[in-house]
């Protein structure tokens, strides 16, 4: 893939031993200032992933490759398993009681569901932004952005933390609006600002992949556009997977689109077709896909 392995880095990766995931398994500490500014985003591959809630088979046999430094959109009608599948990519699916994952999900070749892997380590590399903005209500804006550091890493100096907070807020296009009130509570912002705050919080820990579950569905059109522009910029540094109900958004903001569908309620959702966004929308292979994107159902 273009640009996948040739991201410029400010320090050679060879200094640290092993791959990011195996390092993260044994080493919970991170030093953001020492991290290279542009860490190569990783490829996620899934092979035959089946997702269950107890006995209910929610998603069936998904095999796909999510390309690095691209925005992959997961589209499909309600209930077809897009969010369930997304949550399996950072091991959040298993948090639901009774939920289970079968099949293989690899991050840069490493199976994230390997028995020796700590799910916490996976989630530090694969971040998530949710549909409803959820800043921590007890924390200020500054602390919200720094939450990833405060909650995970060993002691980081104030100066380093300041740097991370500013970098993340700039990255989320929120710095100009909040730089003068970083100590105000996180809940004091508008919906669109809160969502950008959540994005800043997610990128502050420098994940390699960013998962976004309908990030704009709770936002007004202006805020939506701002977040979409942001996504377009973020893809140069992260691999982004976004679930969206909004086909226009998928068409605008993504490079690759994957279409999920349900045969009927009660049956598991499955991946129908996946390919470059313009192809999916103008010249899809499957009839199901064509029906969906032309608005005949869903």
């Amino acid at each position, binding site marked *: 893939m273009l640009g996948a392995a040739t991201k410029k880095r400010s320090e050679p990766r060879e200094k640290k031993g092993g791959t990011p995931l195996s390092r993260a398994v044994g080493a919970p500490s991170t030093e953001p200032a020492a991290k290279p500014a542009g860490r190569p985003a990783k490829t996620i591959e899934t092979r035959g992933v089946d997702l269950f809630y107890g006995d209910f088979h929610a998603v069936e046999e998904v095999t796909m490759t999510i390309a690095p430094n691209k925005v992959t959109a997961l589209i499909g009608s309600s209930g077809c398993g897009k969010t369930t599948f997304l949550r399996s990519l*950072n091991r*959040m699916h298993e*948090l639901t*009681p009774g939920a289970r994952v079968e099949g293989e999900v690899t991050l840069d070749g490493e199976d994230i569901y390997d028995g020796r892997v700590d799910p*916490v*380590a*996976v*989630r*530090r*590399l694969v*971040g*998530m*932004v*949710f549909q*409803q*903005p*959820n*800043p*921590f*209500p*007890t924390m200020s804006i500054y602390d919200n952005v720094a*939450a*990833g550091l*405060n*909650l*995970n890493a060993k002691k980081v100096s104030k100066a380093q933390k300041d740097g991370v907070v500013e970098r993340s807020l700039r990255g989320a296009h929120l710095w100009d609006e909040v730089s003068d009130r970083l100590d105000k509570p996180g*809940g004091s912002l508008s919906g669109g600002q809160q969502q950008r705050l*959540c994005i800043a*919080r*997610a990128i502050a*820990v420098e994940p390699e992949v960013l998962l976004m579950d309908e990030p704009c569905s709770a936002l007004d059109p202006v805020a939506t556009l701002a977040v979409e522009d942001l996504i377009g910029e973020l893809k140069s540094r992260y691999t982004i997977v976004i679930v969206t109900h909004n086909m226009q958004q998928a068409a605008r903001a993504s490079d690759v689109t994957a279409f999920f569908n349900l045969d009927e309620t009660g049956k598991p959702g499955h991946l129908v077709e996946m390919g470059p966004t313009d192809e999916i929308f103008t010249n899809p292979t499957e009839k199901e896909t064509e029906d969906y994107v032309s608005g005949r159902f869903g």
Partner: protein
Amino acid sequence: MESSVQTLGHGEPSRLLASGLGWRRRAVNVVMTTLIAAAFVLAMIPLFSLVFEVAKRGIPGLSLEFFTEDARGVVGGGGASHAIMGTLIITAVASVISIPIGIMAAIYLNEYGTGRLRRALTFFVDVMTGIPSIVAGLFAYALFEIFFGPGIRLGVTGSVALSLLMIPIVIRSAEEVLKIVPDHLREASYALGTPKWKTITKIVLPTAFAGLVTGVMIAIARIVGETAPLLVTTGVVDSMNTDPFDGRMQNLAVYAYNEYRSPGVMKQAAYDKAWAAALTLIAIVMILNVAARLVYRRYKTEIR
């Protein structure tokens, strides 16, 4: 129903006027409002009359001496400072025992518990809320008797008895408060790669802080006036004792009981002091409740 059909501007019979002005409905409204208000007043009468009586009879017993002197060596005179200190110390020790146990149990029940163990625990907590206070007192006494021999009277024994009564209250209210913390905050924390225990201590507990404090204060207010368990565990003594691990400790509830039961030579003075002790207890409970409200308002987090 109006006897004649009315019109309202456009010449056709009006639907808006067809059902009249609703006199009957309004009459029913007034009657019900009056009944409900009367019921409220009726319910308030015992409360106000109680506070009034205790105040009326207790104020004569209040004096500087009451708050600063104990009753050692004095016949008929003396104060209740030892009782006041005793109540505060015994309650404080009971809180130190109950709060960590109660909150951690609530965390287990809400964040970790699944299946049969959780159901069993919830059942036993419910049972514990119904323990008669004298039973808690006898249990604590029997427990200490095993280690220290018969006739043991210690401040801490009373604290243990009170904590048996306090723990289920703390667990119940803490569990409710933890349940209110929305799951999407926990998910946001997990998505950042935070381990579960850290999510609980850094996100869930601070968000629930105000509610937890209120629950604890209400539990304290509940046990601060318990008499029966303290009668059999802490004993009666006239002098100040600030060491819960050493000997008898007086407290306001037992003090009031004692002054009333064995008033000695100066009956009226003793009765006055008993009422004054009761008044002090009510004052402590009121202060705790007001403090609980203030803390709640100051520290509550608006969860969007």
